[in-house]
């Protein structure tokens, strides 16, 4: 690139749409990324996944910026002057596009860097192939701005930019509603995988090919004198799109065994988190141990806690009350992975920690999540999850009461409501008060009986246990 071209590019960068694009993408990007910081704080791969998620707002911005830049010649009525110059039109077009792309890239890079600054000091797992995800995000902005530029050139109206932005927004939204492979045609990712899964680099390379070929086709259509030349990149785009669209949807996610590997805190009882979440282990372990202490002396009580992220799908299902959703599959279509828990570990006496939402932006344990969840409630959930039958209309009222009381006991609640959206009825509170008023040994005996009955799905016994507290 000659110095003259560099200077022309610099002019376009400062005088064109690029600064506005960079600023709006950085502002929108940071606002949206940090609004959901609990999903990625301290973790590299989830940062990349969430960067892809917020593309649902950034891609429309890039498209609008491209369209605005593309309409400039017409808005400024300068076509006449440009038409009398020697340079082939594709060159100024390319410089113009490059300036917008660089603007959007700066915006996205600022966004990612702001996130990375919070991740880098604390991350406990370097992640797998997530940088490809970041590259796809950049390629997505490049494609969006190219398509925007082309549309802005072709349609003579100043409102093309916002309207195209909104259209891109709608298309992006619809894409995330798709469960099949077509969702991957947009650079957006519909939901985060908490860093426990990754996308194959080959697949992401195909995505990059598709996006860049699309960009090239758009640019050739408006830039080249021989428009039919655009069929070449278009053909490449179609060839890349076919395996994407016809391939699996959520099944593209591959389990990452390293990320799910258990990292345990020193000492007893055992508290282990998946490697990807291990940066909060020091915060989590003491609190969880304190709560596990409560179970000492309860027959069949819980004696260890492990991260839900590490469980295989089958194990997760077993850990759920009533052994998980019946009939249909687990919501995530991702591929299963082998168990990482040691053979012979008794999952029945293990608390499953679901740290979703519980990590605050500075990568420490949040006291209470946006939804009102606390670590205490998460640990206490194990008491309810012990219930082994199908959850549904057939469960007697008394069994619900028993489960609720057991949970409150495990959480060490006093009179207040849990505050996580679950509601404790008057009757349950009274039963819980009753339990607390008993001597400690009797409390633990009741809990032991409860666990045995719940695991056996013994409704008669549960009803009786609830009756004892009336």
């Amino acid at each position: 690139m000659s110095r003259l071209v560099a200077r022309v590019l610099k002019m376009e960068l400062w005088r064109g749409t690029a600064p506005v694009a960079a600023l709006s993408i950085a502002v929108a990007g940071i606002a949206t990324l940090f609004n959901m910081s609990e999903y990625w704080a301290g973790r590299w791969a989830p940062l990349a996944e969430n960067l892809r998620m917020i593309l649902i707002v950034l891609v429309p911005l890039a498209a609008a910026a491209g369209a605005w830049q593309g309409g400039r010649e017409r808005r400024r009525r300068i076509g006449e002057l440009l038409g009398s110059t020697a340079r082939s039109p594709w060159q100024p077009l390319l410089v113009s596009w490059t300036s917008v792309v660089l603007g959007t890239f700066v915006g996205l890079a600022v966004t990612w860097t702001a996130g990375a600054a919070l991740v880098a000091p604390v991350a406990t797992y370097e992640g797998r192939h997530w940088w490809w995800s970041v590259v796809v995000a950049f390629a997505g902005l490049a494609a969006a701005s190219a398509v925007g530029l082309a549309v802005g050139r072709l349609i003579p109206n100043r409102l093309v930019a916002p309207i195209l932005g909104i259209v891109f927004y709608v298309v992006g939204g619809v894409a995330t509603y798709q469960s099949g492979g077509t969702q991957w045609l947009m650079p957006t990712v519909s939901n985060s995988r908490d860093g426990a899964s990754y996308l194959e680099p080959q697949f992401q390379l195909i995505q990059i090919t598709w996006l860049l070929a699309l960009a090239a086709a758009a640019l050739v259509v408006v830039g080249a004198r021989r428009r039919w030349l655009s069929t070449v990149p278009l053909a490449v785009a179609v060839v890349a799109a076919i395996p994407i669209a016809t391939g699996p949807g959520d099944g593209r996610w591959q389990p990452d065994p390293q990320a799910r590997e258990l990292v345990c805190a020193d000492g007893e009882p055992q508290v282990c988190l998946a490697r990807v979440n291990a940066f909060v282990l020091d915060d989590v372990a003491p609190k969880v141990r304190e709560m596990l202490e409560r179970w000492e002396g309860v027959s069949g009580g819980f004696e260890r806690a492990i991260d839900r992220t590490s469980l295989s799908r089958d194990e997760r299902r077993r850990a759920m009350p009533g052994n998980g959703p019946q009939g249909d599959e687990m919501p995530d279509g991702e591929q299963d992975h082998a168990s990482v828990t040691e053979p012979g570990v008794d999952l029945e006496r293990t608390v499953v920690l679901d740290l979703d939402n519980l990590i605050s932006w500075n990568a420490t344990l949040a006291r209470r999540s946006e939804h009102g969840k606390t670590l205490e409630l998460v640990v206490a959930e194990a008491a309810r999850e012990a219930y082994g039958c199908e959850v549904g209309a057939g469960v007697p009222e008394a069994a619900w009461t028993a489960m609720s009381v057991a949970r409150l006991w495990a959480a060490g609640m006093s009179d207040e409501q849990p505050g996580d959206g679950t509601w404790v009825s008057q009757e349950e509170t009274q039963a819980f008060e009753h339990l607390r008023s008993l001597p400690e040994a009797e409390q633990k005996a009741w809990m032991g009986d409860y666990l045995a009955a719940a695991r056996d799905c013994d409704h008669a016994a549960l009803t009786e246990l609830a009756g004892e507290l009336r």
Partner: protein
Amino acid sequence: MNASTMIGTHVDVRDLVVEFGKRTALDGVDLQLDTGVHGLLGPNGAGKTTLMRVLATVARSTSGSVSLLDHDLSKQRDLRMVRRRLGYLPQQFGYYPRFTVREFVEYFAWLKEMTPSAVPLAVDHAIERVGLADRADDRLKKLSGGMLRRAGIAQAIVNDPDVLLLDEPTAGLDPEQRVEFRELLRTIGVDSCVLVATHLVEDVAVACTHVTVVSDGRAVFRGTPDDLVAAGEDTSDGDSPIERGYTAAIRAARKR
């Protein structure tokens, strides 16, 4: 760089016809121009701008042949050679308001495929020639109407064009600027072909070496400014000798 000595005819237009749908804007124009400053006069709608646009390679002729600098404009490959040697200031001058004068001129130097190493000097020189040196780093949107016009002229002359087409360049220039501008035209006209469309007959009288009057899409008069003065000796309509000549030329054409 200057190849003007080897060029046969700078502008060679033969039987040029341009139609917009049913309306005929140019109706068989013949025109041969060499170095010097050529004035293009004519009433509103006569076809001056249309002729300029054809010569600037932005409008297509319906029939007839046009060649610039010995290159036929109908050939795609020749077009590029011609455009490098062309300077054009349209009547409707569009610009990017956020660019500075220097950036705007430099941008066009790039578009005209000038040798990169020659660009910085050429840009400064062009801006100086139109008297905008002290405003070179101002944004275009901050300039007055006349200054904008001068920035447009700077952009047109930055590549030392062999053919310079200026469509009403003096509209909006103050008297002092117009005097300087005529001087500029004379200097450029020494070894280039300058074609100036204008309504200011005095400009033509002072600055031009040749005059062409168009009316209703035809070239109705060709000659020197003195010839035009001579043509008007019989009439009294007009305040100056050359205005009388212009009026006479148009009248004669309408009678025919």
